[in-house]
Every structure is written in C-alpha cells, then in structure tokens.
C-alpha cells in the first residue's frame, strides 16, 4: 500500500502562522508589516508572569495570490491560544483599515484572515473585546468598499468567541475537517451549565456541534477543503472571484437563510438529527467518512450567497 499520508505535503493544521502564509501566497511575495524585529510585544502579559511574542501572535502583511495583491493576517493558535489582545487585535484592525483606505487606488484585491483563536485574551480582556468589535466594524467597511474578505479556518485553536463572530462577518468561509467555529467553547458551557448540557471531553460530540462538517452542511461555511495548505490556496483563489457584496439584499437573504435554519432544525440536539432532516444518507456515519466521501455528498446548505 502506498503512503496515504503525503509526507511532504504541508498540512494547514500542523503549520505555524508564518508557514501557512508562506504556503498560501505566491513564493517570496509576502511582506510583513510591523514584523517581529519591531517587537510590538504585549505590555500586559508580564504582570501575569507570562512572556510575550515578538509579533503578539499575529502576522500581518501583503503578498500575492496567483499574481493578485492581497492583504493577509494569520493568527498563531499556539501562542496563548491565538487569543485577541490589545496589540494583536490592533494589528488586524490596522491592516483592515489600510485595505479599506486603498479600495479606490491600488488597494488589495482581497483580504485573507487565517483565524486560529480561542477568542479574547483574558489577561487583557477589555482591550481584546474592543478590538474584536473594531475588527467587525472594519470588516464590514472593507466589504462595503467592494473588497472581499475570506476567513480560512483549520488550526488547532479553531475560531471561538469573537473569532467565531468575525468569521461569520467575512464574505466567504473556508474550513478543513479540524476546524471548529463557535462562540462559547465546550469547556465554558460545561463549566457553566454542567456536563449533561455539554460533555466537552466527548470530542466527537464537540466536532459534531462546532466542527467543520456541521458548519459546512448547514451553510455556516462556504467551502470544505482537505487539509493541505495548497487546498486552502486553491479555495481562496476560487472564492475571491465570486464573493457576495455587503448590502441590504445580502443581509435580508441571510436573515431568511438563518430563519429557515431555525425553523427546519431548531429542535435538533445533535448534528445527525440535522443531517437526517436534510435527507442525507446514513446521517450517523457522516462524521466518520473520509474527506473524499464527505465531499461527494451533495447538499444545498453551503451553496448560498447570503453572508
């Protein structure tokens, strides 16, 4: 049997934020803004006896995607869970504002957000929360200016808390199997509401509730890719060509889409309940399929222009 796991195919989940950017963009096209040598380190961590990161856990800059100018921001999910702090958040705010300001001149063709975050960094919770709100505002303005923003999610921290909200504000969302996109983390729900409500150690359940397959099949993600960096690149290329505009028509359609979801599936407790109602074959098996078999499932969920 030949090796089914390609040893030299760079894997999104394994890669660092910098490796993801390198593999996503055209070779050697990336230029970093406020790079690690400028040492924009969080001043708030020392009082918690924590060392910082020279980029505060997020890499921002510009580069080319198949020759097209793009802005990119990548969170490092292994540094403090990729959480939003003051500097970390402001770097993302800054690049989004620059994208909007450049919309009419030689601004980027698109913005790529490589989210990998547990949400707000609690050591600087207020600054992180506010940054998330500022990012939501800036995302909307970039989209209003006609520049698509793609969320790419497939790292170990997922996109939780404000990260989940930012994800759903983007024009298009790409996920791979390991992705989780949610607001409250399973552990938080378990601590607050008890293990009967959500057993966070039942990892299969966690992914059925928050995971990529559930999001994709119900329309919470637009593209499901296999896990290599190249797969993400190809999806990003395809999606920036036909991103929805940000206007009343889109939001009314999203309102309709989200209402219908609640009407159809609002009484479901687990993902297979939803998949059964969707008429998908063998709903109990969907979480177990390999990626190729999963991608062969034809559904309407992800196929929409309402985001």
């Amino acid at each position, binding site marked *: 049997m030949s090796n089914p*796991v390609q040893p030299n195919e760079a894997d999104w989940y394994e890669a660092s934020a910098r490796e993801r950017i390198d593999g996503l963009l055209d070779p050697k096209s990336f230029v970093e803004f406020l790079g690690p040598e400028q040492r924009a380190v969080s001043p708030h961590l020392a009082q918690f006896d924590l060392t910082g990161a020279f980029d505060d856990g997020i890499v921002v800059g510009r580069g080319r995607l198949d020759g097209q100018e793009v802005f990119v921001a990548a969170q490092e999910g292994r540094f403090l869970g990729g959480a939003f702090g003051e500097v970390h958040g402001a770097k993302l705010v800054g690049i989004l504002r620059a994208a909007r300001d450049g919309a009419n001149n030689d601004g980027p063709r698109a913005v790529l957000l490589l989210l990998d975050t547990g949400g707000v960094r609690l050591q600087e919770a207020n600054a992180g929360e506010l940054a998330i709100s500022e990012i939501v505002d800036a995302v909307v303005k970039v989209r209003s200016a006609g520049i698509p923003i793609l969320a790419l999610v497939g790292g170990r921290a997922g996109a939780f808390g404000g990260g989940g909200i930012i994800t759903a504000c983007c024009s298009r969302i790409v996920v791979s199997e390991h992705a989780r996109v949610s607001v409250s983390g399973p552990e938080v729900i378990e601590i607050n509401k008890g293990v009967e409500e959500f057993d966070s150690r039942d990892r299969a359940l966690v992914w059925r509730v928050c995971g990529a397959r559930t999001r994709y099949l119900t329309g919470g993600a637009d593209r499901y890719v296999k896990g290599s960096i190249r797969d993400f690149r190809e999806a990003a290329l395809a999606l920036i060509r036909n991103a929805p505009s940000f206007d009343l028509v889109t939001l009314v359609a999203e309102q309709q889409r989200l209402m219908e979801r609640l009407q159809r599936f609002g009484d479901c407790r687990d993902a297979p309940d939803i998949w059964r109602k969707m008429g998908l074959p063998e709903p109990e098996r969907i979480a177990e399929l390999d990626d190729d078999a999963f991608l062969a499932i034809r559904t309407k969920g992800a196929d929409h222009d309402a985001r």
Partner: protein
Amino acid sequence: MLTDWEKQRTERRTRLEAGSRYANGKLVASEKTKVLLETVIRPGDRICLEGDNQKQADFLAEVLASVDPSRIHDLHIVQSGIVLQAHLDLFERGIARKLDFSYSGPQGAALARALTAGKIELGAVHTYIELFARYFMDLTPHVALIVARQADRDGNLYTGPNTEDTPTIVEATAFKSGIVVAQVNEIVDKVPRVDIAGDQVDFVIRTEKPFYVEPLFTRDPASITENQILMAMMAIKGIYAEYGVKRLNHGIGFPTAAIELLLPTYGEQLGLKGKIATHWALNPHPSLIPAIESGWVQQIHSFGSEVGMDDYMSARSDVYFVGDDGSLRSNRLMCQTAGLYACDMFIGSTLQIDLEGNSSTFTSGRIAGFGGAPNMGSDAHGRRHPTPAWLKAGRESWDGDRKLMRGRKLVVQILETFGEKMAPNYVETLDSVAMAEKLKFDLVPVMIYGDDVSHIVTEEGIANLLLCRTSAEREQAIRGVAGFTDVGRGRDRKAVEALRRRGIIRRPEDLGIDPLAASRQLLAARSIKDLVTWSGGLYQAPSKFRNW
C-alpha cells in the same frame, strides 16, 4: 485417625450451595451480587478482583467495596492492577487488609498515601509473570471475580479481544477448589468462541454498563516532538540496524511511538524493511498501523487489546492472533513469556535513571508498580536459542572464554534528559531509594536493573553499556548522554570524548544524522486522523483522541 484430604472441595461445595440460593442455574441477577459475594467470600480469603492492565471488573469491584465489613474483612487482594478507586476503597473500608499486586498506574499516588496511613499491608510489588507464578504457588485465589464480554447459560465465556489475565486467573482458581464469579456485558445463547470453559465458571452476572477499558496504548502522533524523532532516528540507525533486531517489544512512550511511525519513512530510506522489526510482542499500538500497512510487520502477539483497534485487527489476521470467530485473542502470560524468551530487544521509557543505569518509575509519592517492563527488560538466563542480534550483544559484553560465550538481550532505555516541569530524568540516586526507606520496604523498587541495560538513548546520543568494562566507564557513558542535567554537566569531558572515540557514546553526527533533519514531516502519520486514514477507516479512534 483418618485424614480429610478434601477439606477444600468440601468448603467449595458449602459455599456454592449457599450461593446458589441467589442464582438461577449459574445466572445471578445484578441486584443480588452483593448478597452473593457476602455468601461465597469469607474473611481472610485471597481474592483476585480482576483488574488487568486494561480491562476492569468494575461492577464487581464496586459491589465488593460496598459489602458489610463486619461480615467480610481482612481479605488478601492478589491481582495485577490496582487501577480503580474501588480497589482502594476496599482497604479504606476495612474489607481488605493485605495486598499483592503488580501495576497501579493512575492510583499510584493514592496507593502511596494509603500505605503511609497504614491502611494497606503490602506483600510485594511484582512483575506480571511473577504474580501469575505465585497464583500457582503461594497466592492461589480462593475467589476470583473476573470479567468477560459475553457468557452463555452454561457459563462459557467470551472475553473479546481483551482476554488478558483471565485464563491465568481462572486456571489457578478453578482447579484449586476456588470459586469463579464473572461479570459480563451480555448473556447469549452461544458465545462466538469459548475463551473460558463453562465448567470453570460458577456464577455469571450481567451488568447494566459494559466493563471499563482504558485506551492505554494510544499515543497521539500530534504530540511527538522533534527531539523524540531525533532519538527515534538514532535508535533505528544505531541499534535496530546495527544488531539486525527482528523480534522485539516496545514500551508505550512517545519515543517508541516515534520509532513505529518512522519505520515506513526513515526506515524505508535506510533500506531496512524486512531486516528489522518483523516479529513483535506488543499491545495493538495504533501507531504501528502505518508500518503494518507498509508491509514491515509479519506477526504480533499481544498482552491485551486496545480501544478502537478491534475491526482493524480482525481484518489483519495474517498479522495478529485472531480466533476463528474473527476477533483478537490476547493473553498476558503468554505474551510476557514471549517477550522474556523470544524477543531480542526491549526498548522503552522510564521516569528516572541513575548512574549505574538502574531505572525506576517510583517517583516521590507515587507507587506506580512494575507491570511487565522488568520481564521485558531483563536478560533471560534460561534462554538457549541463538539469533544474530542476541549473539552480537553477547559478544560486545563478553570478556570470558569465547567458546562458552552466551548471547544477551538488548535492553534499551530511551529517555529524554529532562521530563515534565524540567525534572531531570538522570539522577545520582533514584527517588525510590528514599521511598523504600520511608515505607520500610525490604527491597528498593527498581524497574530495570542497570546490569540488564544494554543501551541508553537520549537526545544527546546513544550510550552503549555493553562495551563498558568498569563502573567508572558506565558512569561516564551515562553522564555523557545526560545533557544539561546536573548528572550530565558533572561529566568528565575528557573521559567522555575517549568513550566517544571507542564508539561507546555516539552522537547524532557520529551516526550520520543531522539533528536538523529530525522533522515531524518524517512521521508516517502526524495525527490520530492520519492513523484512521492509514487503516482505511478500520481503526476507530476513542472519542477523547479525536480532533474532527
């Protein structure tokens, strides 16, 4: 005066008759379990409450821990694993007093506390084979409380893949007038295969919940570090290849998991397929799946099973020992014997190694027990069949008359220089020495004695202890691979360089390995999901390991 030669048989009949009041044939309703146990067990009995390395007679343990201590007390527990809270409750509640066991794992700290508090009178901590041996000598159980997947109405038991200790326990109990009580998940008309014959089983109880099995041998490839990969590369090139090790046992640590995952990649590059690691005494490690699928492995016999591996093993009966029913048959005693006499190498981790090469997993406040490692990791002096690996190891250590040279087992300790929280793994004196003093043990617990150890592998290099001729050389060889620990920094640099010139210490560069080439990209699987993919979906990973 007439001698009564049947006291035990009479006693057995009396107890059986008393117990049968609560049974319908051999079947006992689960709510009658407590009264049954209070009837067939007597104060002072030796009890084996089946607690294996993996599967647990958890229901019977809970019930036994809830019996009336005024009726049942002073029990002597003789079982391999002290793993469940209920096992310790027996002593806390005064139901049991004496303990002879082998492995404690997760209860190591609680066990140490109970010993210090005087709740337990400890016989000894054994290796598996050693305890099993004593079942047939001086620790024969009066009552065995065992566990299986299925039973029929005649008491025939099907254990499923986790056969483990059951045949050994039942052999010792049933043929010495003891009483055997089994908890099972299901009663069926006909069991798929008979692991334990019905005439050796007295009572059967169906439980509400399936018995507990811990996935002990699943190592998530995502947690393997670059340095563990470096150590694995050194071991493959510097030991497996050099000695041509074909028959072996692996411990359960991450460095050995890294070796398993490097066979189809790095091992392939070195052209070693078919030349090393073909026959195994090994639990069904999921991390060996890529090597099996790549055709490296000819045969594996297992001590126990592993959660999620059932379908995979059924579909790979050329490799595993599988019954006619299609499921794995494991057996701890047989596999331990295979490891002791038929393996040319044991390689595994430990928690501490001293300057003589003695190792221990007893660190302060934890009595972890031994399990099988001391047997796997010892040179069996009863061995008489030669293999090239065994002979080469023998040659390296032999100083006497070549005509009568005997071979040697390779016993390799693979252990990074520092452990959790920067605790040094290489020490002047094992923690177990102080612990033995404090708890007044007659014997200091040692996992593997230094004179059995042939090699030590750290991220700094390999120390070949076979080639050392004096204790001073051994000490410097160990210091010379102990990195930046106090022990490592205390090395005599000149002596270490001399050992290096003699090939006693070998660094990565001495083996032609670039430390910067030790990349996770070399792993045949980098996640549990990759293992599922390799298995073609046959491996069903336990939920706690999923990230999908």
